[in-house]
């Protein structure tokens, strides 16, 4: 464990302990939500590909990693002849711990779902992508028959993992989608999600299992928030979005509800040229050069090469010591390159 001042970029392992300490708390479903839907379960012990995809479709499972319907994702993987299917059981976020907690508590469900998903897309190998080597050692005994990957502790760990193992060869699905697929085989639709409540504006950090459609506000209340948090963010602490309406329903993509006492630091200083943004970028973009090009007023599209590869992970902006919103800069550069939009803000 390195000290805070020694790290560069966003360290994923820094603030996960508090919310992982307790078990997942099931929050009561608010009134007014319809009862969970049920349908005919899969009867065979080893169901065929079409039946699994049908069950996933019927259960309305959405992968929490990217919001893609699981049935579509699995048929995409099947068409691509994916060899390895990995269940992503770490959270690519410094504060969220939902996936990790799901793996720890619902191990059997995740494994069963992963097996079904692998059967559906024809993947020969099944992997569990765990948060760290320590997590791999901890979970290895409980997961027979699957291999393990350890994610790095720097922020876009998922993107780096996908690139490292080849997006063509390896497919990734979320741990919660796996668990939901195991439930779907029993005839239950996806109706819950695990959400982490954290941030310095919350006194009780925890993971809670909530019904889809519960208002964000009532999830936040479970964490005993401060009187006046300045920002409430969902999805991710690095590239998520702030919510202003707490009655917004929790979705599969919500992942975490974070309350912060203070506003994020605004851009205070110009670029000092440390080059950390280029080091943080998993796609090999050089954001400082793009910023310089855009600030010059007449960017040369030749020098904006690579911007179309951006995956909006926001690692560059989070790593910038000057607090420049580099993710927005790269997005603007992409617009400039594609359609000749005005380079200045």
């Amino acid at each position, binding site marked *: 464990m390195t000290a805070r001042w020694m790290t560069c970029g*966003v360290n994923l392992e820094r603030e996960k302990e508090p919310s992982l300490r307790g078990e997942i708390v099931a929050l009561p479903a608010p009134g007014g939500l319809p009862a969970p839907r049920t349908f005919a379960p899969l009867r065979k012990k080893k169901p065929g590909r079409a039946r699994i995809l049908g069950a996933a479709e019927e259960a309305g499972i959405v992968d929490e990693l990217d919001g893609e319907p699981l049935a579509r994702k699995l048929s995409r993987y099947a068409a691509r002849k994916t060899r390895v299917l990995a269940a992503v059981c770490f959270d690519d976020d410094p504060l969220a711990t939902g996936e990790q907690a799901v793996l720890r508590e619902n191990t059997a469900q995740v494994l069963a779902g992963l097996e079904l998903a692998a059967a559906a897309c024809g993947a020969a190998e099944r992997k569990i992508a765990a948060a760290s080597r320590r997590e791999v050692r901890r979970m290895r005994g409980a997961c027979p028959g699957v291999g393990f990957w350890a994610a790095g502790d720097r922020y876009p760990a998922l993107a780096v993992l996908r690139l490292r193992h080849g997006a063509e060869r390896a497919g990734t699905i979320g741990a919660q989608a796996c668990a939901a697929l195991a439930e779907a085989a029993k005839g239950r639709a996806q109706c819950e999600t695990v959400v982490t409540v954290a941030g310095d504006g919350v006194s009780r950090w925890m993971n809670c299992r909530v019904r889809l459609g519960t208002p964000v506000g009532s999830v936040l209340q479970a964490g005993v928030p401060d009187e006046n*948090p300045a*920002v409430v963010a969902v999805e991710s602490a690095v590239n998520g979005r*702030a919510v*202003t309406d*707490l009655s917004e329903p929790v979705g599969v993509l919500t992942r975490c509800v974070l309350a912060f006492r203070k506003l994020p630091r605004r851009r205070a200083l110009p670029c*000092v040229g440390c*080059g950390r943004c280029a080091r943080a970028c998993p796609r*090999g973009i050089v954001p400082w050069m793009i910023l310089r090009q855009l600030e010059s007023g007449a960017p040369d599209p030749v020098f904006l090469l*690579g911007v179309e590869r951006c995956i909006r992970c926001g690692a560059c902006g989070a790593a910038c010591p000057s607090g420049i919103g580099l993710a927005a800069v790269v997005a603007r550069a992409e617009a400039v390159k594609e359609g000749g939009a005005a380079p200045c803000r």
Partner: protein
Amino acid sequence: MPLTKAAAPFVRGGLTVAGMMRNAALALLALLVLPVVHYGPRPLLLAGASVLTCFACRVLVCLVRRTSVSFSEFSVLVTGLSVPMLLPLNAPVWLPCAASAFAVLAAREPFGPFGRNPFNPSAAGVAFAALCWPQRVFSYFDPSRPYGFPLFGRAAYRAAQSPAAVLKEGLKPDILPLDLLWGRTPGPLGTTAILVVGACGLFLFLTRTAKWEITAGFLGAAALIAALYPRILCSPATSVKYELLSGSLLFGAVFLATDPVTSPRTFSGRCVYGAFAGALTMAFRWFGTYEQGVCFALLIANAFAPLLDSAVLRLRGWEGKTHEA
């Protein structure tokens, strides 16, 4: 409760520009400790006067430009602290003030806000002083005798040749290694205590304030040249020892060359930049008139920094490194 529609990211990496500048200022302040212990409070006066001059010049520029005065970035403080480190303790108080005034007014502010200056302000300020008042910049007192330097006014001291000047004459400096490490040698105020400079460098690298590859390239190139072309008749190892440990070479490699604003932004660019600056420094020692060439060498290397960056990016085809391969 009113919630703000703020934009991501909501967390950031631990490092900020203010933190980097604070670390650099702390390391520079640590360099003042040994001189204060040895020679009384005069080093503090020099450093304080220089810092005050820098701030005054900054305020002046802000007033002329009609912009708001903000010191949030501490960079002026770092400039003000590193200028007197390169000047002798027996210099009159106005000398560091003049050098830092030049640093801020001519090398930093004309180029716009912080982060735009192409040349290292401290190096430019000291180079200016060395060109205008070479006798004052390169005359050092003999630290082997106890002196009490008065805070203000002129002190009576016996001049001595610094190890760098002795090397320039082609002789071997007659100095105990321990004195060289603890800074009991004639030389610029903050650069003689090799151990402290090294420790500060280690602190800067560990806190990721400075990039180690610049210093490594700088010292590596300087050591290579010192070993291949010794200026004095001795073994290569002795030549390397005296060249690296004399004068302001190590200080320049640790504090001046690693300035993120004026150094290249790509890793390979920084390696080449460091080696280039180190080689230039040795060239100035060989062929230059003055015993110290670090500041001049750095200014020349600064001019090449953007070129190195674009060369590196061009070699990579403007594509950058990718993890896909």
